[in-house]
């Protein structure tokens, strides 16, 4: 479920800062922690949430791990909404055309 995971990941102000910082350029954990009032372990935790949501990817550069923002992650938010409404309206049209002629004029009419 990309949409809720992305919203959850970005609901946290520190994670948003981290994500935005990585949009500027890729960085390692130390660089991220230096620019934020949080510890390196905390930065690592936040990075894990961002990775799980598909917003950040991790690369090895020798012994260093470099974290990079993946713009496709945010594009998925839009794509998810498009898909959700396409599915929902198709489901509605199908259900509405199968429903009995007079939908719930009273509560017991459709049971």
């Amino acid at each position, binding site marked *: 479920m990309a949409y809720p995971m992305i919203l959850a990941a970005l609901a946290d102000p520190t994670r948003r800062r981290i994500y935005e910082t990585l949009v500027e350029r890729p960085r390692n954990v130390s660089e991220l922690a230096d620019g934020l009032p949080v510890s390196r372990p905390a930065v690592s935790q936040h990075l894990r949430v961002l990775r799980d949501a598909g917003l950040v990817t991790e690369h090895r550069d020798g012994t260093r791990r470099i974290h990079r923002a993946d713009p496709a992650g945010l594009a998925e938010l839009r794509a998810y909404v498009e898909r959700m409404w396409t599915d929902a309206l198709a489901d509605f049209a199908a259900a509405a055309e199968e429903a009995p002629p007079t*939908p719930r004029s009273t509560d017991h009419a459709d049971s």
Partner: protein
Amino acid sequence: MPIPDQTAPAVEPVRKSVVVRRPQAEVFALFTDRLDTWWPLAIHSIAADTFEGRVQAEAVIVEPRVGGRVLERMSDGTEAPWGTIRAWEPPARFVMSWKPTLEEGPSTEVELRFTSLGTDRTRIDLEHRGWELLAPGDPRRDGYDEGWGRLFELFVSLAG
């Protein structure tokens, strides 16, 4: 990254349309009064998103008035709002705020218009908009730290 403008540009809304072979009043009633009989709750619900099968969405109640809630009821009795009705004009139109998640964050807005195409056909036009509410300077986002301003810019550029 450019600095986000306080007057953020409008992001193109998500728009969808469908034609249903039913009269307008019936379509509006089915859409709102019995939303949970057709909505894909198993895929798109707070329960499905949040509890991964441990709790199911059982019902969605649309309180039919301005200020009314659109409320998901789950199998453990929990109720969680998807949004609030902002316009209620049966059988032609309604508007609701939209934040179907337990997470903090801004709401977007969804409008449904129902247009009669004769006695037994109705066109539904959906517009999911208000992505600019994620931008800075929106009073609804008070206390929301630096806000979603730069993310919003990214979203604008990606939405295309």
